[in-house]
């Protein structure tokens, strides 16, 4: 079956621009996560969605970051006024009932 998909696979943007990253989770998975993988910080949790509940945003590094999940499925991570330190690979994962998360291929963001 189809796995988690993310788009775009690569995004190059200029400092100060806004970017949107998209995640399509595995159908039927109720939980969705965003993680960031950067050279300085390793892999870190950003945000968690569970069904229609309010998201857990405790991992977002600043108020320039936001995310939404429409209809309990597709999620969009938005970064406003991008900075060079936002350059990283952004990974999305989804999870059915249970504890195993399934990861997408990631979006590599480069801020010039």
């Amino acid at each position: 079956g189809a796995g988690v998909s993310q788009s775009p696979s690569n995004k190059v943007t200029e400092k100060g621009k806004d970017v949107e990253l998209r995640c399509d989770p595995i159908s039927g998975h109720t939980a969705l996560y965003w993680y960031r993988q950067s050279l300085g910080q390793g892999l870190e949790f950003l945000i968690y969605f569970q069904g229609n509940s309010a998201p857990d945003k405790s991992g977002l590094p600043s108020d320039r970051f936001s995310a939404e999940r429409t209809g309990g499925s597709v999620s969009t991570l938005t970064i406003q006024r991008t900075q060079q330190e936002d350059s990283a690979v952004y990974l999305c994962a989804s999870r059915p009932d249970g504890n195993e998360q399934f990861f997408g291929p990631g979006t590599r963001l480069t801020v010039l």
Partner: protein
Amino acid sequence: AQSVTQPDIHITVSEGASLELRCNYSYGATPYLFWYVQSPGQGLQLLLKYFSGDTLVQGIKGFEAEFKRSQSSFNLRKPSVHWSDAAEYFCAVGEETGRRALTFGSGTRLQVQP
């Protein structure tokens, strides 16, 4: 707060040699433990997981890991490494309840010499 330590940043082994990647965790309750592998430009692939029961768990690609509560360790092993195993390996601990987010170690990059 939970944490994961992978003390080896980079390991080089010869093809056919055995491999052990170290992982130590800190977690207040029974940990849910995972090993993921990431090849260049790829996402994370689950190798194996431990939730409960038998402390020696088998995974894909011939990998196994042993949970040792007394040492707070979950080391990954493979008896004979193949060139295709060259990748980065991440150990992670998952929350038992609630959001079940993963906390990752910093990763170990494995290089395989012919």
